[in-house]
């Protein structure tokens, strides 16, 4: 079946512009995660949704970052007034079950290809 898709794949923004990055998770997956990956680093957690509820946004670096998942499927990560330090790859991942609670084999996260954001 189809995996996680993200769009656009590449985005160039001028400093101060607002950007919106889209994630289409695997159909039926309850959990959705956003990560930021700087060059040469591992992904860093930004925020987590369980269906339409944003349960954890502890990783969002500033109040310029905002994420939503209004109908519990597609998610959008919005960055306002972009800065050069926002340049990174933004990864979306989905998981079939709620990760909190009992350990199951289905809390594995499946990643999309990412959106590479370059802020000039």
């Amino acid at each position: 079946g189809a995996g996680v898709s993200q769009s656009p794949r590449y985005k160039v923004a001028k400093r101060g512009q607002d950007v919106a990055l889209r994630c289409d998770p695997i159909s039926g997956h309850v959990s959705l995660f956003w990560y930021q990956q700087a060059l040469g680093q591992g992904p860093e957690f930004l925020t987590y949704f369980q269906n339409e509820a944003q349960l954890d946004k502890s990783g969002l670096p500033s109040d310029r970052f905002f994420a939503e998942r209004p109908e519990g499927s597609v998610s959008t990560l919005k960055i306002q007034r972009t800065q050069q330090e926002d340049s990174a790859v933004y990864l979306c991942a989905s998981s079939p079950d709620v990760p909190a609670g009992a350990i199951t084999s289905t809390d594995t996260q499946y990643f999309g290809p990412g959106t590479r954001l370059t802020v000039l």
Partner: protein
Amino acid sequence: EDQVTQSPEALRLQEGESSSLNCSYTVSGLRGLFWYRQDPGKGPEFLFTLYSAGEEKEKERLKATLTKKESFLHITAPKPEDSATYLCAFSSSGGGADGLTFGKGTHLIIQP
């Protein structure tokens, strides 16, 4: 503080030369230990999940093992197509963030 350290940062092997990648972790409550493969310009591709010390999983030339402090990814007789960055991550039950905590990865190059 929960953290993951991967070593070496980079590894160059000849085709057929077996080796192991290390992932040392510190976490208040381990829910799962994950290995991913990431090719340039792509998102991480899931390889394995390990849940308890002593657990092992295999897939083709790869085998992942887990102890209470570290995990190893053993690569047997690698081929050039195994060249990639291998990422280790964990999920925690310790009340921290709900996402995965990743290491920086090991960049593996297999020379023909």
